[in-house]
């Protein structure tokens, strides 16, 4: 598999580390135990297009959001995580 890092260009799978589904969002501090449980443990485990987190640890150390088809492994989009580099987030 090859992933096109938005910063480095197309790179070999071995430079990346997989985390998993990028859909679950970490609940706020006020969230209930059930909500956090859902975030930590339950997965859609999509068969098809899935948005997922990959880390380009063997390259520029950017966390990436990769849209990949779990049936074919084809990658259709790669974007940086919100806080990559010096991006200003929020206000």
């Amino acid at each position: 598999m090859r992933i096109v890092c938005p910063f480095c260009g197309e790179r070999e799978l071995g430079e990346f580390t997989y985390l998993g589904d990028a859909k679950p969002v970490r609940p706020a501090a006020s969230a209930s135990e059930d909500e956090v449980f859902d975030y930590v443990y339950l997965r859609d485990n999509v068969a098809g297009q899935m948005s997922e987190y990959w880390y380009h640890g063997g390259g520029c150390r950017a966390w990436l959001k990769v849209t990949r088809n779990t049936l074919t492994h084809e990658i259709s989009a790669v974007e940086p995580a919100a806080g990559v580099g010096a991006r200003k987030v929020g206000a």
Partner: protein
Amino acid sequence: MVGRAQTHRLEKGGLIDRSAPLGFRFDGKTFAGFQGDTLASALIANGVKLVGRSFKYHRPRGILTAGSEEPNALVELRNGARREPNTKATTAELYDGLEAASQNRWPSLRHDMMAVNQLFAPIFVAGFYYKTFMWPAKFWEAIYEPAIRRAAGLGRASGVADPDHYDKAWAHCDVLIAGSGPAGLAAALAAGRSGARVILCEEDFVVGGRPLADGGTIDGMPAAEWISRTLSELAALPDVRIMTRTTLFGVYDGGTHGAIERVNDHLPSPPEHQVRQRLWRIVAKRSIVAAGAIERPIVFAGNDTPGVMMASAVRSYVERYAATPARRIALFTNNEDGWRTVETALGAGLQIAAVVDARPDVSPAHRALAAKAGFPIMNGSVGGVDGGKHGVRKITVSLTGGARAEVEADGLAVSGGWNPAVGLTSYHRGRPKWQNDIAAFVPDSAPPGMVAAGAANGAFSLGACLRQGFAAGAAAAQDTGRSGKAGTAPAADDEAFSLTPLWHVAGKGKAFVDYQHDVTASDIELAQREGFESVEHLKRYTTLGMATDQGKTSNVAGLAIMAAVSGKSIPETGTTIYRPPYVPVAIGAFAGHHRDENFHATRLTPSHHWASEQGAVFVDTGLWKRAQWYPRPGEKDWLESVTREVKAVRGGVGFCDVSTLGKIDVHGPDAGAFLDRVYINTFSNLAVGKARYGLMLREDGIVYDDGTTSRLAEDHYFLTTTTAKAGLVMQHLEFCRQVLFPELDVQLTSVSDQWAQFSIAGPKTRDLLREIVDPAEDLSNEGFPFMGAREVTLRGGIKGRLFRISFSGEMAFEISVPARYGDALARNLMLAGKPLGVTPYGTEALGVMRIEKGHVAGPELNGTTTAADLGLGKMMSTKKDYIGRVMAGREALVAPDRQVVVGIKPVDKTSRLRSGAHIIPKGRTPGPDTDQGYVTSVCFSPVLDQWIGLGLVERGRERIGEIVHTHDPLRGEDYDVELCSPVFYDPDGGRQRG
């Protein structure tokens, strides 16, 4: 080494170099061949027909093909440590001194005692072993299985380390082409002329494909001349690379292809500094499979007799190698292509005994040729072969209409049609489709970026191969943005390919579908009868297609027979899933450089070479080599060395390289806020110049890592991790920074390799440090209190850092200097500390002191313990959110009966504790219900003069003082031990604060 005359070598012709004679040995006999021969062609040239024995029945087998699809002619090539089992004689290049032996026979190929299996053939049908060998139950491992294992298998591996080297490399191109036949060369021409970066892989050692044997006319010139001109043109293009002896074996995601280059297999052994084989990972934007087609056998009784050979192979041996598999050849064909064999044989002065053509009509031209050459054309099929290990003597022909005829011949060429090589196009689980006119499967879909061209795509005429290849090459170049002119495609005639499908000739006697695995037509019928109708069941039940030829000659015939007996069409019956590699690939090639001590990289600490000079014993910790202890002359074992080191520290001063700890610079205005979210305790309120121990959890509430973090400036923290988790914590923190908390202004950098960091410990630590640190630095308790951290100037002017932290429980500092000074720091400490008796200590002494002090480490941070389990629950802040906070509160993680860290001390001071022993209440029988925990860490404590340990014990902290039992059935050691405080040494911490 030049042996006897080559009795079956033609006087002239062939692509062999007669000026380069080569000697070789097969089964101990000496033979001669020429440069350019394969082992198979050389054996044929010497009249050798019997080459191997089959898997199950040990039937005599000869050479069936001239390529990598060979099921029969497998040999053990080379000797000793270089012995290669199951090597296809048909692809093994001949070299001078080659040694090969037949396999799977005892005591010899000609007199194989295992051929007795043929007597049991009536019982040894497909799957027979599932129905027997069940009683008595104990006999399977004792009797049946060893016998089966010995009989099964083919060649013998060397059994000793492979002495050759392998490596792996990457290549990148626009257009990758598999196969150098007409389609592949035309594709390379078109793509190369367009300006594309092209790689063409050819598994053979000669470029050209089928025309090497079958000739033909291209662009008005003989094929050989066209190939030669094409190669010249390709060589002149800047970015076209032709790799011979290289098989494209697989296609993976993102345009990554696997290829194996047999760099030096054509030599007795690789030249010095060179590898035997190289694994290529070829990244291609487009790929073209021009891998040709494989001629398929027809299943009939006796079709495995040595001397029965694929018609195309007969032509290859005669034309390319000038070797004659037989002198009086019969041809059995169901298609037009087979007839080429007649021309080839006659051209070489061989006799045609008869042509048996299964098609109803034979062209007038063929009839005229037959009349002229004086051989009969028989409309029908071959129903039997007379012969044996000495070869074919006679064939029986069932003529259309029912009559039978016999033909004397010493060889039988067979053509059942051709199967396009659909492997590569199908490796992403694509299923090929059936094409009626050629009665074969052709690619239907292919992995992204891949197309098939030529015979691999079902185009069997020379003209079509050239057109398809050229068009595919031009299109691929266009797709990759190369817009040069491809020019015109090479042209050739479109010969007719007429075929009447014929898979199986019914008759008496064993008719083989899968030669190597001895799968017969009746085995397939049996499988159908027993319900194994799915082709995947068929394959698994009969082992059809699972041999080293991967079913290249057998699969389609097998499923055609299954289709016939189950009353379905062939496409309805379908194919099995195609799986890489396309040809078997040496495991050593996949490993490449990464074997033996190069299996993984090695990390060395800044003081490594100094420690090595000191005679340190090193231990592997992840990728690191760390000094474990420093033996001195006269010390009888490690324990004596370690005990001395501990005593030296506790009584004086010692130092230890702790550079392996992960070190991370945390910068930015929000650095404190960031650390508050990743640690369970608070860091935003840490004063500049101070250090604090921190504990981080995973999001599931379990302890992840620990370490000391110092605040060096308002916006700069220096964080340390454990050695084991350094990389993972960095990744985790980047995740927190970039994904979870992107609003925080914080920057992270690993500085693990920037700093050499040593722990200096013992009551004389300050005395030693004063020799190292600039005299102006205040090291007193007031000037540098416990948990202080700051930059200092060292004697000589360089800058370093001091951290007043202690893992050992002694008065201690950690000192860090830029890594290139690490070696000097060790030497300087030794020099300066000489009057103080300074002692370097290793990880063992470090471990002893941390256990004496009750500090938790890897064995306690085992991925299932909570902060409270470790006795650190009070660190969990209730005033802020942090990773893992919520999940840590789940009922089972806060249950009162959890196993928690506690100290363990044998009642009898001479008992030796061992990690991994379990804790059982005293007086109870060990069992699942009484298993209350286990010993996590142990050491011999020089301070207490006995073995001590830490353990995770159910309700351990409530049971301090209780006598329990350590149960260790593995090592047969059971002791009474007392549960105690984990802090064995200086419980109030006076020494480290002093």
